[in-house]
């Protein structure tokens, strides 16, 4: 079962802290929607036809019972009691409130080693990779963080 390590956890926490402040500044009007849109997309938050949509990554498409219970809790506490599992190996919540998304990202998902980082199609990600060795090598250098 996939589990991110301490480095990943620290990285996620740093990103969520940044996003929390970005949400605060958006709600106060310090950030315009034009400024905020790429930031929320990098954290998996879309604004769709009817409401916001939060996309949570499910690494390797596998879930433990504990993770599933947490996703159910998030659906009940922050949404309308349901989530949408998609063919992109993620779950999507269709009715979150903007001001509550930092709480989901900071206080709920990390407890079960999950996150929303780069789950938007507009941000850099890899899904269903099938390619030549050369392309894989290039993609490896792009996504690995070096000190």
């Amino acid at each position, binding site marked *: 079962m996939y589990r991110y390590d301490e480095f990943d956890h620290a990285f996620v926490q740093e990103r969520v802290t940044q996003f929390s402040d970005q949400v605060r500044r958006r*709600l*106060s009007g310090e950030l315009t929607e034009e400024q905020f849109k790429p930031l929320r997309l990098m954290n998996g938050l879309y*604004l769709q*036809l*009817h*409401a*916001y949509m939060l996309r949570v990554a499910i690494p390797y498409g596998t879930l433990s019972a504990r993770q599933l219970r947490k996703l159910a809790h998030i659906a009940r506490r922050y949404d309308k009691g*349901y989530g949408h599992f998609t063919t992109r190996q993620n779950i999507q919540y269709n009715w979150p*409130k*903007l001001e509550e998304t930092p709480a989901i990202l900071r206080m709920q998902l990390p407890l079960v080693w999950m996150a929303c980082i780069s789950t938007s199609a507009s941000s850099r990600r890899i899904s269903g990779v099938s390619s030549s060795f050369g392309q894989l090598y290039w993609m490896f250098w792009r996504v690995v963080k070096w000190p």
Partner: protein
Amino acid sequence: MIYRALTANRLDDGRVVYLTHQGSWTEWLNEAALAGDDDRAEAILARGQAEAAAARVVEPYLIEVVEGDGLVAPLRYREAIRARGPSVRLDLGKQAGAN
């Protein structure tokens, strides 16, 4: 006659809203302010843009609607879906009145 109404998404929860005559926002198209001419349409658009600048709504824009028997209906199908709620799971969207 074709009127124009102003719609946007509410900033805090992303819900579809419409500008009313009182300058507030409602989730119900039947309560929206209807502009019958260009001057009135520009006025409500300007009001919506001020509301966006005040961080209450996101990306306001005008839509075309028709009115009949006290009901207001959008001309475009996309706006009809936005006004009614999701076209699937009617028990979970605006149609259920459970917002």
